């Protein structure tokens, strides 16, 4: 037995030695590269350990998507001909005769989608965790400009295959330029369209897509990286001290670089699998006859703008108003660090801005989906108000409910409050807020609809009854919400000023102990 034990120990130690030898060999290999390439020289500051989290690297993954775009795009450039007569034929040639051509096109397209989606996620994450606040305002603005350049890639790249869908949609987009103010319209016409018809237009788009926009994006990336080095990675907003392990820093090479490569490999494999599962099919070639029978529709990332433009009030003379509205949204996004400039960074401390952010996402998704399922249809203004108002209300109510839950959870840390009671209140809060959200959305929609009907059709008995009924239900909903908020606060014992009107039928023993 003892001999067997010795043999086992010897075996284990042998394995350990072998393992150490393997490990040192690998370390030597890494050191060899490091000493030759200077990878671990302190050009980039080390990253804190808390940054080893995919959400911290959404921007980096956007750059990875850009690199994949660059590689696949450069291969396609070998075959693509940017002229109206040959663009479609050369694209078709890539699909049918170039080795893995369809696959390249598919990966290029889906990675472009992923790039836009990742850039959007990066922006919204930054917004919610307050990275746009002091001292990173300039980084936010640079990032926003990079986002617009990314959308520019989408806009210019969409035309290049010269399919009937892409050409028709791009023509609609270009047509809107004339609705912009004079100098802007002239400049954009000069830059994008030129004076040579389709041939110039395609060539300009191609040049923008493969030379101008990549150059701008790379310059902006360098500027943003420089600022990132100056400010460092933003700290997580935990509200307390970071654990010592989280504060530990890791060198960019090899630790952080390897982590990034892991993320890039997982992202790349995801893109490959999606491309394999849903290979791209080339739509028909653009001809004016076919275009006349086709309803132009932009790609998904512009569908929200498309849907805004389809609202009846923005048709014809209202187009400049719609474009001004879209421009205003972009301006607000750029200037956000100066609008939401307060010192509070935690989500629980910024209910208004967090709710506005959630509404923004919900409205974008709603508009995009709506635009997708109603191609070419003009949307009546009252219907738009009903849907968009309803969505905003549902999100607001849900957000309010969540903030109530967060705050009640924070209060549960107080020693004087009964925790099991708070849990019951939380569940009750959740149910009530969900019910109120649904009811509130319905009533606000009905009220808007009845108001618009009254204005359009004039006062008659049915429209008046509908108007009174809908506003009464809305008033009941608002009162019920106020009463409910008051009651839950009363139960929690956090009411500062009692309102006796809301306490009819309320027994004093239910009032929280803190009172």
């Amino acid at each position: 037995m003892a001999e067997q034990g010795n043999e086992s120990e010897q075996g284990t130690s042998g394995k350990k030695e072998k393992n150490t030898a393997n490990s040192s060999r690998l370390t030597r290999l890494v050191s060899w590269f490091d000493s030759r390439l200077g990878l671990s020289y302190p050009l980039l500051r080390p990253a804190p350990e808390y940054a080893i989290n995919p959400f911290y690297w959404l921007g980096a993954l956007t750059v990875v998507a850009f690199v994949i775009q660059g590689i696949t795009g450069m291969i396609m450039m070998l075959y693509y001909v940017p002229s109206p007569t040959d663009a479609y034929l050369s694209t078709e040639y890539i699909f049918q005769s170039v080795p893995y051509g369809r696959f390249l096109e598919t990966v290029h397209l889906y990675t472009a989608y992923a790039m836009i989606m990742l850039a959007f996620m990066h922006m919204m994450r930054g917004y919610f965790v307050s990275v746009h606040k002091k001292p990173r305002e300039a980084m936010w603005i640079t990032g926003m400009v990079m986002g617009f350049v990314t959308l520019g890639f989408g806009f210019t790249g969409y035309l290049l295959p010269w399919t009937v869908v892409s050409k028709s949609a791009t023509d609609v987009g270009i047509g809107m330029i004339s609705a912009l103010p004079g100098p802007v319209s002239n400049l954009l016409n000069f830059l994008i369209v030129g004076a040579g018809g389709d041939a110039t237009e395609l060539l300009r788009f191609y040049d923008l897509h493969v030379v101008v926009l990549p150059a701008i994006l790379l310059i902006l990336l360098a500027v943003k990286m420089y600022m990132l080095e100056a400010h460092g990675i933003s700290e997580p907003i935990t509200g307390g001290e970071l654990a010592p392990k989280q504060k530990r820093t890791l060198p960019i090479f090899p630790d952080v670089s390897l982590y990034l490569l892991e993320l890039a490999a997982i992202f790349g494999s995801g893109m490959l699998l999606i491309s394999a599962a849903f290979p791209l099919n080339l739509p028909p070639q653009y001809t004016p006859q076919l275009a006349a029978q086709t309803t132009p529709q932009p790609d998904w990332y512009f569908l929200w703008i498309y849907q805004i433009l389809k609202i009846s009030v923005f048709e014809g003379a209202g187009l400049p108003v719609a474009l001004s509205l879209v421009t205003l949204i972009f301006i607000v996004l750029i200037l956000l660090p100066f609008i939401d400039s307060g010192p509070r960074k935690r989500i629980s401390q910024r209910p208004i801005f967090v709710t506005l952010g959630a509404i923004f996402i919900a409205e974008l998704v709603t508009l995009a989906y709506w635009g997708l399922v109603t191609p070419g249809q003009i949307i009546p203004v009252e219907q738009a108000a009903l849907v968009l108002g309803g969505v905003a209300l549902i999100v607001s109510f849900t957000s309010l409910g969540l903030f109530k839950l967060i705050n009640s959870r924070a209060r549960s840390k107080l020693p004087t409050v009964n925790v099991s009671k708070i849990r019951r209140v939380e569940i009750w809060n959740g149910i009530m807020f969900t019910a109120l959200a649904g009811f509130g959305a319905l009533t606000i929609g009905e009220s808007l609809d009845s108001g618009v009907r009254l204005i359009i059709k004039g006062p008659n008995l049915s429209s008046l009854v509908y108007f009174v009924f809908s506003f009464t239900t809305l008033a009941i909903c608002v009162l019920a919400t106020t009463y409910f908020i008051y009651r839950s606060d009363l139960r929690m014992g956090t009411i500062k000023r009692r309102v006796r009107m809301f306490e009819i039928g309320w027994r004093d023993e239910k009032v929280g102990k803190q009172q």
Partner: protein
Amino acid sequence: MMLYQTKRIVTLLLSLQVTCIVFMWTLDALNQISEAIFALFLAVDLISFAMMSYIYRVDKLDEVPRRIWIIIGCIVVLVLVISSLIIQ
């Protein structure tokens, strides 16, 4: 012991990567099914690389790689290889 096991996994993954690359060269590059198989094998290569990198990185920090990630990675690789064989 754990470290020894992870090194064995790295060796296995490296062999798998080489096999995938060799197999990819044998595919007909103009066939649509081959494109799908090519994508699956390339994905296997990338996931194998991510796993190897994870093991090396965590090992370098004197920590033990989390078994759950290695199991998930192995399952994904297995599913992809089997899928590509079925497609073929």
